[in-house]
């Protein structure tokens, strides 16, 4: 599904983002990516979704070779991915419903599909009653659930979450992780970048640990161990 082959990323200011990273993620896996701030978790995700180009190495995503895609193929690839960020990235002038619908509109999907799927997904994340609320009328946890609804509305093969719980309290964090687990149960591959030790240890899934742009540990049923 996802494969990094000897990938390095040096930023223009010579900061090292990634150094010779190789790993494979199979379809249906739930993988946690852990490491201290600055370890390179976000860099890895940006390379995966083509937001940054690798300095060296190859990145395979399904049938695509990410680092060689032209912009039309890149947008096709992104339609097969759902992405969730720490800062939610919702549009302030759109309601919860509209924010979720936006992902379908951008893909040029018909209104009938929007009217059918958006309420279903909002139901799934537990927000059917908040569909007409604007982001500033929602709590952090609710915002993140809207973001997750948006990430999964188009049935992506992979959901990527970069510190989705970074701005949330423990209870809300747990809710979000539960949602990601449910998405994973439905067959979607999940890649979760986090430095929340408790969450990772509870998950008992595969853990890739990073230090200074390198992978130092990659264990199934792993724990959060960073020296």
């Amino acid at each position: 599904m996802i494969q990094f082959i000897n990938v390095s990323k040096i930023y223009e200011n010579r900061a090292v983002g990634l150094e010779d990273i190789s790993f494979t993620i199979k379809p249906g896996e739930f993988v946690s990516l852990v490491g201290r701030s600055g370890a390179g978790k976000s860099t890895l995700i940006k390379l995966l979704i083509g937001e940054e180009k690798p300095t060296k190495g190859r990145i395979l995503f399904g049938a695509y070779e990410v680092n060689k895609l032209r912009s039309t193929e890149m947008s096709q690839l992104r339609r097969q991915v759902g992405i969730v960020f720490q800062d939610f990235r919702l549009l302030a002038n759109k309601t919860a419903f509209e924010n979720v619908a936006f992902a379908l509109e951008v893909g040029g999907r018909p209104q009938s599909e929007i009217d059918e799927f958006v309420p279903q997904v909002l139901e799934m994340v537990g927000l059917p009653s908040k569909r007409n609320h604007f982001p500033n009328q929602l709590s952090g946890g609710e915002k993140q659930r809207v973001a997750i609804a948006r990430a999964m509305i188009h049935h992506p093969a992979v959901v990527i979450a970069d510190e989705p719980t970074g701005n949330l309290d423990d209870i809300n964090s747990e809710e979000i992780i539960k949602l990601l687990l449910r998405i994973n149960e439905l067959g979607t591959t999940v890649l979760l970048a986090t430095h929340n030790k408790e969450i990772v240890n509870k998950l008992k899934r595969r853990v890739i640990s990073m230090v200074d742009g390198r992978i130092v540990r990659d264990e199934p049923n792993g724990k959060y161990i960073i020296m």
Partner: protein
Amino acid sequence: MATVLVMVLALMTMQALMLFNVGTTTAVAAIQDKIDIAVYFKRAASEDSMLALKKTVERLPQVKNVEYVSSDEALADFKQRHLTDLTINQALAELNQNPLPGSLNIKANDPNDYALIAAYLDKNAPAGLIEKVTYSQHKNAIDRLNKFVDTLNRMGLAVTLFLAFAASLVAFNTIRLAIYSNRDEIGIMRLVGGSNMFIKGPYLVTGIMYGFFGALVAIILMAPIANIINPYLVRLVPEVQLETYFYAHIFPLFGYMMLFGAGLGIISSWIATRRYLRV
């Protein structure tokens, strides 16, 4: 709003330039049509020699047509024009001989060729045939008119280009700002897989719309302007019917301005999206 305003200014000058060109072309043609070289023969010249010269001159490639006015015709014409003038009639009656010479009125295809034709006559006409050739006043007047029209055209073109450039800059900046203020939305569009055209399209359309509305406003503004200045123009050169021309050509005028405006708009927005909308 400011974008449309500057666009309107640019298109208005372009439109004024187009109308001005039509006007001056008509006016110059009308004036050129009225002028010619007149060759006045000596009283003693025979009709045959005058007609022979007419034939020669007609064969010159620069010459459009030659009209021969015999001394009798000149007299008849003269009398006709001064029918009511008793003194002149009396004076003519006292002369027992026609005082008016025969003449040729030569029209050239190009007013610049009058000097050439005059020089040709000077050199090649049989000696003792021609009394005088009058053209120089005409030539100067036409030269000056042509220069004036040329200068105005060039100035108009410069102003149009300058305003077009200004309009492009303003459109470019407006679209840049629009992209900037929508950057969150654009970023999210990208993340959820909005295609290049899906993201850029609206900005390109905006650029085209500036051109379209600019042309629309320019044509609407021009109608009353044509209406107001038409009487003055007609008094100046009766052949120039600005208003008639404007209404007869309102669609091509609008079309050209729209093409030009939309062209400017789409170029500006294209550059703006290329620079600020990397997908």
